[in-house]
């Protein structure tokens, strides 16, 4: 086999697979989004963005991402730093911390529903402690704050570990000598974190944030389980268009809007966390 051709031959199967099962459906969805039966049109987009629920779903989705992702980032950084300092039992702790990754998002939503619902663990506990005299229904339209908080908690519990594993791998790659040099030259532990860990972690931070932000805009099952229709998000609306309203053109248009937001945020993250020209990290 020609050595110059070999790499291309080897990546051919996966490329074909992606073209067939990703690129082709994507083209189909785009065609659906930009047509209502005959010719090119933006009608589908006008329809979904003109609907009264659209600003609410958009706001909810962005708000949730803005509330959840920074907390997850901070937590993941803290956990990764702690794990990295451990000498014994490091793997065990990592396994335990990443357990939620193995649970589907719907199951995660149901677990937190079991905590927050009227006959749930939280109510039983508050009742048992005498804080409330009878179980209260927390997840109702009168308590939008609690609904939001429940979704936030579930998301943080469920999806922090995906950032954690990426950051743990990244931190492990930073040579110990940099920390020692920084320490000798007067950097406190906090300064070492700011001036050494964070900048040298930029490639891992990029990956973790891009992945997490995209997933945050795709949030669906956790919200469905905990908030139902109380907290509409973009992906839930897409589902409703497709399966409740049987309007696949509108669903496709909304899906493309989510894609556009994801791409925009990806570009912003890559830009903000870019490595200076010439620096090798």
């Amino acid at each position, binding site marked *: 086999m020609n050595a110059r051709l070999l790499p291309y031959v080897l990546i051919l199967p996966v490329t074909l697979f992606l073209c067939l099962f990703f690129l082709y459906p994507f083209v189909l969805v785009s065609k659906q989004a930009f047509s209502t039966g005959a010719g090119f049109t933006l009608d589908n987009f006008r329809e979904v963005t003109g609907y009264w629920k659209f600003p609410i779903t958009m706001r909810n989705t962005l708000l949730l991402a803005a509330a959840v992702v920074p907390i997850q980032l901070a937590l993941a950084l803290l956990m990764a730093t702690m794990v990295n300092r451990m000498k014994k039992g490091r793997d065990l702790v990592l396994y335990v911390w990443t357990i939620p990754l193995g649970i589907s998002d719907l199951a995660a939503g149901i677990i937190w529903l079991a905590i927050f619902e009227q006959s749930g663990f939280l109510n039983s506990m508050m009742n048992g402690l005498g804080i409330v005299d009878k179980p209260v229904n927390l997840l109702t339209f009168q308590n939008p704050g609690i609904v939001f908080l429940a979704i936030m908690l579930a998301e943080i519990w469920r999806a922090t570990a995906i950032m954690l594993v990426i950051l743990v791998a990244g931190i492990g790659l930073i040579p110990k*000598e*940099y920390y020692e040099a920084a320490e000798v030259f007067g*950097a406190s532990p906090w300064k070492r974190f700011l001036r050494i860990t964070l*900048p040298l972690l930029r490639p891992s931070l990029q990956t973790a944030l891009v992945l997490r932000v995209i997933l945050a805009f795709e949030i669906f099952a956790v919200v469905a389980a905990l908030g139902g229709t109380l907290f509409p998000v973009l992906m839930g609306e897409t589902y409703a268009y497709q399966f409740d309203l049987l309007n696949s053109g509108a669903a496709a248009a909304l899906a493309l809007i989510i894609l556009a937001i994801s791409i925009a945020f990806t570009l912003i993250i890559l830009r903000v966390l870019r*490595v*200076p020209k010439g*620096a*090798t990290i």
Partner: protein
Amino acid sequence: MAQIEIKNVAKRFGTYQALHDINLTIQDQEFMVLLGASGCGKTTLLRIIAGLETATTGEVWIGGRRVDDLAPKDRGIAMVFQNYAVFPHLTVFENIGFGLRMQKLPNDEVKDRVERTAELMHIEQLLKRYSGELSGGQRQRVAVARALAMEPDVILMDEPLSNLDALLRMEMRAELKGVLAASNTTAIYVTHDQVEAMSMADRISVMHQGEIVQAASPIEVYRNPAAEFVAGFIGNPPMNFLPAAPAGDGKWSVAGQVVDGPSSGKPLKFAIRPEDMRPADTGLTATAKVVEPLGAHLLITCEVQGSMFRAVLDSDMSVKPGDQLTLAPQPDRMRWFDPDTTLAVA
């Protein structure tokens, strides 16, 4: 002013005793080299002085202050690391100025000091570059400049030249020695390279298995090794050893030859440097095995009564493998060691 005193320092990693009861005083502005093979504890000792490692027992004093409980930054030290540890995400300027920024010095003073040290290390044209755009030698210069910019009392260096190629190492050796002498700092320099140690040090501490075997000037360490280990470690090729049997008071029989030596009741080891032998009519009888012309000299590996023996002779001698040589050791260069304690016997 920074004299360094190391008092009864020992270090244990688990069950492994890395350092045994080290005592050493390094004078203000002295250039002290810690020399030894890998695993002898020299880097551990340096790291204890730096504060990157804590001694299991013992005390470290720098400039009259006990520093064991002080953080590295409060000890008045700066350090050059073996792999340079030049931060890849900062420019050369910010690397050199890192410690100054940590001290929160005003911008113009940082700029002034960075530029001054960069000039001293001849890297003033590289200030805007990143470490990935530098050669190994340039990175080395940045690491040294970063330490010098701190204007520390003590500079600690952990094998700073070991990653450079031979030619560059020689050049940097001389330059580093000059720069450090001009900076009036006390320097502790860890190396396994005896040429580096000999050429740079005011004093060498030869370390072996977690102990300092000898701490003396380079020429003293070379001429009068305190122990067999030092004699075998310093010098390339190292000292020759032959068993010596007593032959009357102050007389010793070495390979059938009677020579003058110390008064001692028990058998000793006779030692002589390869270059301290002269071809003569009477002396040790040696059979040449390998002849290596080194340009300036001829290195001859031979056999003397079953023991390997090396001699460095003038390059215009013609010697072939198999030749019989008669080598006379220079009387004032002969050394004697006790085979039981391995220490020198005067």
